[in-house]
């Protein structure tokens, strides 16, 4: 069952990478064989959790030993405007006896406890390595529990060892398609209803762009999965158009929404002024094509004009301070190109960007943006990054949390642009915030002192 799902996901026709592959290559899938002793990155379970945990009113129950949930719960920055249940850590925390005799009974009881105590609209049950290996059939348990407790109990079959985070994202998407989407109906619909897919509301970024859609009268019917309620995901098949935010993460949902329900989509980004404007423009265009009044297009252009002017005005004072500053940008794949263009908008120079997780398409876009001699680093060692910063060939690094010390220990500025970051960088306001943070990081008066050697050392 799981194997066929994985094959299905690997066959994703809308994936840019897949289009250039032979049948055989495709079967092998896009998860690169990991190198023991030289691998980094989360597992499929991690990816599934990242994709689904932002659904706020669901109880997310992890079936496995304490490692999977105990070492990682409540560590992500997705924000909620309502329920806080998603931040509660639920796990079966299986013991040695469960490993010997099977953990299905414990799982069933755990589901009952969760429903009795917390009464969520749905329970998501996550499979992990050990429980998959001993053959616990979470699908069967979930089915039995659903019937017994009269509530959706949904198996998320993405045990860590089947692949990386990206595969986990997709398997999570499959679970939503199989069990959630299309199971409820919204109270009413409008010609202005959209889905946003692949946006997790980290640091509240969805709320940063929502007012823009609001101003246009566009309703976010469902966001998958930032600040979403279960029912909103369940009725996402009633949207008129879909914006897909992070190209690879949940492409399968997006495409199948089109296939099954005829909902057209486009791929966009909220990072950077021009990307934000483009996203608004494309959203309106799709809605109009689906029957929304054409005047929406004009209103969109007006809004874009105003917002862009406002943003540029706010960015003006930073331009001179940031022009020509050399940035080393280390992010997971897709985000690269959208951030590249964002930084170039204020005149910064990207001296290198990681493309380890990028698709051919992503790489093409980066090339377009950065010119032919773009420094795309497939696999730069931390030591090389450190040298680059230490020698000031790069003046600031933007990356995820775990690599921050490469920059900081070289006494060079660093800014968090990954999951755990504390600032929201989406939309026009977000771009201004990003630039402000970069400016603060670069010009902190602290640098001068920390870089100076101790008096007895010079």
């Amino acid at each position: 069952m799981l194997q066929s799902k994985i094959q299905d996901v690997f066959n994703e026709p809308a994936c840019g990478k897949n289009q250039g592959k032979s049948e055989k290559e495709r079967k092998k899938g896009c998860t690169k064989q990991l190198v023991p002793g030289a691998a980094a990155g989360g597992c499929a379970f991690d990816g599934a959790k990242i994709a689904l945990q932002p659904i706020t009113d669901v109880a997310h129950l992890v079936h496995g030993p304490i490692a999977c949930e105990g070492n990682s719960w409540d560590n992500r920055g997705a924000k909620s405007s309502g329920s806080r249940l998603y931040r509660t850590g639920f796990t079966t925390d299986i013991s040695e006896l469960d490993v010997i005799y099977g953990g299905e009974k414990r799982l069933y009881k755990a589901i009952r406890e969760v429903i009795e105590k917390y009464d969520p609209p749905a329970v998501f049950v996550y499979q992990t390595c050990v429980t998959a290996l001993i053959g616990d059939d979470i699908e069967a348990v979930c089915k039995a529990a659903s019937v017994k407790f009269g509530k959706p109990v949904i198996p998320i079959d993405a045990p860590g060892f089947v692949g990386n985070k990206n595969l986990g994202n997709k398997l999570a998407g499959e679970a939503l398609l199989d069990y959630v989407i299309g199971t409820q109906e919204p109270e009413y619909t409008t010609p202005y209803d959209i889905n946003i897919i692949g946006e997790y509301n980290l640091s509240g970024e969805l709320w940063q762009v929502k007012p823009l859609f609001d101003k246009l009268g566009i309703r976010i019917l469902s966001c998958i999965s930032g600040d979403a309620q279960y029912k909103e995901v369940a009725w996402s098949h009633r949207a008129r158009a879909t914006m897909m935010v992070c190209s690879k993460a949940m492409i399968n949902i997006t495409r199948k929404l089109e296939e099954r329900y005829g909902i057209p989509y486009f791929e966009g980004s909220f990072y950077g002024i021009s990307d934000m404007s483009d996203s608004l423009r494309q959203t309106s265009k799709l809605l109009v094509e689906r029957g929304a009044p054409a005047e929406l297009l004009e209103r969109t252009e007006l809004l874009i004009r105003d917002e862009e002017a406002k943003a540029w005005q706010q960015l003006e004072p930073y331009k001179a301070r940031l022009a020509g500053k050399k940035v080393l940008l280390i992010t997971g794949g897709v985000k690269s190109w959208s951030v590249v263009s964002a930084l170039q908008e204020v005149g910064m120079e990207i001296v290198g960007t990681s493309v380890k997780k990028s698709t051919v398409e992503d790489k093409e876009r980066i090339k377009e943006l950065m010119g032919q001699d773009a420094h795309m680093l497939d696999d730069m060692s931390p030591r090389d990054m450190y040298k680059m910063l230490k020698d000031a060939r790069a003046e600031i690094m933007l990356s995820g949390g775990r690599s921050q010390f490469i920059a900081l220990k070289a006494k060079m500025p660093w800014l968090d642009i990954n999951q755990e970051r504390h600032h929201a960088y989406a939309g026009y306001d977000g771009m201004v915030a990003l630039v402000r943070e970069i400016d603060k990081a670069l010009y902190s008066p602290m640098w001068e002192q920390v870089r100076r050697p101790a008096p007895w050392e010079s």
Partner: protein
Amino acid sequence: MAKIVTSRKACTVNPLKMSQPIGAVLAFLGLDHCMPALHGSQGCTAFGLVLFVRHFRENIPLQTTAMNEATTILGGMDNIEEAILNIWTRAKPEIICIASTGLTETKGDDVDGYIKLIRKKHPELVDLAIIYVSTPDYKDAFQDGWARAVTKLVEELVIPPFEKGGVGVISAGISQINILAGSHLTPGDIEEIRETVQAFGLDPIILPDLSGSLDGHIPEEFMPTTMGGTTLADIRRMGASGFTLAIGEHMRAATEAMHAKCGTHYEVLDRITGLEASDRFIALLAELSGNPVPNKYRRQRSQLVDAMLDGHFFFGGKKIAIGAEPDLLWAIGNLLAEMGCEITAAVTTTQSPLLEKIPTAEVLIGDLEDLEQKAQNCDLLITHSHGRQMAERLDIPFLRMGLPLFDRLGAAHRLSVGYRGTRDLIFEIGNMFMANAHEASPSTWIPSQEECNADTSATAH
């Protein structure tokens, strides 16, 4: 005597516990030029890494054998071999330490056997130390993994005095002593311990030594391994020490292993937080060294006594809820009880001989949901950062202790050992009580409706 209760819930809610393998990893991170690795699937390593990065705000070297479903079923020999070779060529560590995970334990990989084969196959690895410890996720908890890792290091690496490379007869007056440090000690605590021991003219080898690797120093170069910590040479030399001092009950097994191997005399100090506990520590150092207690510590002792005198007003009768691993629970729980607090709720992660001696009615091996229920009327909550949600709901002061501490700076430098550490901890907690004291108002002494009802029903009986 506390009653020990194990939670009977099928579903753990808001875990207090973390898993054994990453406890072992943290111990290994206290070794110099070391690369720890988890034998399992990549995600376990990623989670452990992120956890420690957020706690210490430091680079964390940690690798994985990158097992997948197929390799797990076939057995992990090839992956371990490849991992060792890759780490060896890329990171050039002096020591590679591997901890198992639930996945590979379920399959039952014989890693010790694999390592023997790998050694035979690769004579070029002769100078590389390789340590393996078995730490299934589905058993025990973080501090158990730490304890097992340290025990294994002692068993495998320490050279007994009369073996090849050993020192032979150890002279009676030798100043070299071993300190086996528990997982509840911060790099700051370890630094304090070292300075204190040295002040008596003793020469400590501390294992593991997080104060060398995760204290936040700025290295000259960037290295993919740990930078600082107990060196391999020092671990080997531990067999030549005159004494082993263990700090934390969970270090007992490692201490006994040292004794069994090298005959080293030892003492396990269950804690060095609190006046009496610190006295024992200092008196022992005086006895071992034959030196008088330095003035600095006499002075610090009287500062602590003064802090207790000034502070006890605020501690008396306060109800405390603590969620911590056994050794931390023991240290903090006892200190607070000694200051007059009442330990109303105590939740821990794993078994320990200390639990039944904790000054409270009941110790529950459970989770933060349990603690939240028991903490309803408490004056202070003490647990790791994951207590933040419940602290908000309970609306009581919250002291973050333990690991992880991801929403505060300076986790590595929190000090709670010795006279100085205890003094500062008393100030910190006392200040929290003070800040939360209820100001009197006209209605303070008017009984609430509930109390009135309770009174009438009491008289009716």
